């Protein structure tokens, strides 16, 4: 089919230069990326490699300095509900309870009250927060807040979910659990995910495809299709092989930079 050939998200030779106190800082240079519908992609790299910048460009929070930044072949001109973002610091509205946070998007788009509530409740159930619908964010743990943030984006019919180190601030146990849940939700809903992380293990566990980036200036180095079946066993030999391979890829960049 011709339609499926058009990627949901496409970056062609995208560059981003920030000017800070009159100094130009090149955050991203010549990035090329094609994301197909339903794919789970992880961006990985050391800090300063431009992975968060790339994500913010995809969200429309920043405009590219050069190159084409396209969704379904159309230029991205600003943030919009088709590209939902999950922030590391949650970004929940503290004055809204769980249900209203999740209903924020549908409400913004003028949906009728009954439908908003129904949608919110459906996604509350999806992330398992039925007992917390009326609770305010400051009463929730970090893992629960991030569940709300994910549900909020999904409830708004986001076609692609952009996640910026979403589990980075969580403890290890909660983190593993949310990774499991995310994979499950992804396989159930067929959503597309672009996920930034600095954890090699997280990337291999989650992604169909891992994109490796390196700093100075930020750029994409290579891509790896993770051909492991799901659910993935992080203790398996194949998983370890991937871990070793990606670690060497990342470290070789460090060595190259130092040299």
């Amino acid at each position, binding site marked *: 089919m011709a339609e499926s050939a058009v990627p949901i998200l496409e970056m062609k030779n995208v560059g981003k230069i920030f000017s800070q106190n009159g100094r130009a800082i090149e955050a991203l240079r010549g990035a090329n990326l094609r994301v197909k519908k339903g794919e789970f992609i992880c961006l990985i790299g050391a800090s300063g490699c431009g992975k968060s910048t790339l994500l913010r460009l995809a969200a429309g929070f920043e405009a590219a300095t050069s190159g084409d930044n396209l969704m379904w072949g159309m230029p991205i001109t600003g943030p919009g509900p088709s590209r939902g973002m999950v*922030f590391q610091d949650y970004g*929940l509205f503290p004055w809204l309870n769980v249900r209203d946070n999740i209903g*924020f998007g549908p409400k913004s788009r003028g949906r009728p009250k009954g439908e908003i509530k129904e949608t919110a409740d459906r996604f509350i159930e999806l992330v398992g927060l039925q007992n917390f619908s009326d609770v305010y964010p400051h*009463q929730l*743990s970090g893992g629960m807040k991030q569940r709300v943030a994910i549900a909020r984006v999904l409830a708004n019919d986001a076609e692609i979910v952009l996640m910026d180190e979403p589990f980075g601030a969580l403890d290890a146990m909660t983190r593993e659990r949310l990774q499991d849940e995310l994979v499950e939700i992804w396989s159930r809903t067929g959503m597309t995910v672009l996920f930034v992380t600095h954890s090699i293990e997280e990337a291999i566990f989650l992604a169909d495809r891992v994109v490796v980036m390196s700093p100075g200036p930020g750029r994409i180095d290579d891509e790896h299709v993770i051909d492991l079946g799901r659910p993935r066993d992080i203790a398996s030999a194949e998983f370890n092989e991937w871990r070793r391979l990606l670690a060497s890829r990342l470290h070789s960049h460090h060595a190259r930079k130092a040299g």
Partner: protein
Amino acid sequence: MSTLASNREQETSAARKPDRIAWLPRLRPVLLGLAFPIALLAIWHFFTAGRPGSLIPPPHDVWLELWDLAFGGINDDAYSRTLYVHLLASVARVYGGFAMALMVALPLGMLIGRVALVRQLIDPTIQILRPVPVTAWLPLAMIIFGLGPRSAIFLVFLGAFYPILLNTVFGVRSVEPRLFEAAAMLGCTGSAQFFRVVLPAALPSIFTGMRLGLGFAWVVIVVGEMTGVQTGLGAIIMEARQLSRTEIVICGMIVIGVFGFLSDQLVMLIGRRLLAWSPSYG
């Protein structure tokens, strides 16, 4: 910071409500809060009772005067049973001036906070006018608004105006930038963001400003009623002072204190209802 369940996340949420109210721990702060004024009262009594030369009347005389002001039947002079009139006049001015301050300071504060042009135009003037004490405005107020309640209301307005304005400006300016991004990616952009993000985010600050403003309104009422009005708690305090009726002065002080306190409690009650989501109010 209260976290319902930090480690095991899915536990029931109802565990927080205590089903039996323990009375002693609840009563303790009340008792402690009363202990200090009772001690002050005792000291006051000790130094003034039974000393005819004392310029400060003893607590018992003040109590009798307060009773007479409220219900009459003791002195039966010009002040008997006039407390309601004065209280009502003062309350009307306090809330009148406060309401006017709200009507001006809230929209102005939002504009100064969110519109650079308005900020650059008005903020410097406000910063210079702000340190001018309300008392200093008294002569000008009497020239502009004449003798009478209008000057009083104006001074109360001024007293309440700055705290409301400054806290509103602070509130609408210090919205976390992340929340604008979150709203934008959910489809809430432009002016809708003002009502769905800026306003609710600024509400705790605005409320703090309102609370401070109402407090100042009560503080300023005595000065405000020095402008030649016949009624009001400030007016009888000033009049009683000239007549050396110190017990009436003290009665006026007590009534202002009590009603200022009650009105602050009322605001806090509303605040707790409205801002249950905020860790600093709820």
